[in-house]
């Protein structure tokens, strides 16, 4: 699933490792989510949403809406 994680992370000058530590996951997880190779579970998506203080749909791009664009 496409997302804005890399951009949001860069805006805060966080490395993948920084973000991984804040989310309590591995750096590989952050990388896999950022590159769209892995879709996080709902609990992890909410954790990401809480961390960036943004709604989930502002971080992760809804695939059905993405196709409609």
């Amino acid at each position, binding site marked *: 699933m496409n997302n804005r994680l890399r951009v949001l992370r860069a805006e805060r000058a966080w*490395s*993948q*490792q920084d973000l991984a*530590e804040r989310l*309590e*996951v*591995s750096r*590989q*997880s952050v*990388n*896999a*989510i950022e*590159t769209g*190779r*892995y879709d*996080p*579970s709902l609990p*992890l998506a909410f954790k990401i949403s809480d961390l960036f203080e943004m709604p989930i749909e502002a971080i992760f791009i809804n695939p059905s809406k993405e196709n409609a664009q």
Partner: protein
Amino acid sequence: MARHNPAQRRYLRRFFPAMTAYVVVLFACTWAIRHYHPQGAALFLLSLLPALPILAVIAVMGLYLTEEQDEFVRHRLVTSMIAGLGIMLAFATVWGFLENGGVVPHLEAFLAFPIWCGCFGLVQCFLNLRDRMSGGGQ
């Protein structure tokens, strides 16, 4: 950051004693069978004993799967295990028919577990390599 997370450290703390026990029990039982030529129940027991630490290793792997908190790592492991299982089953099917035709020698059934471990390890290496090649770094 630590190289291994707590679940991985627990896995290693359980895995190595089980493998050490396997080597010790295997050598002890092989030695006892060759020197004492036991029969009946004693032979059954001595033949069975080396399998028990391997059963423990399988249980340790299962425990790790349930204890791993990182969902991507768990997902990656399960994917590798299933892919490894598919390769092992395909290999066993082909080998079985070739063996039936007398083309290849007999393979012992206890080799299924190490062959599966090898297959799923190779799949994990392949997936990790693919990640690195597609921008797995920073």
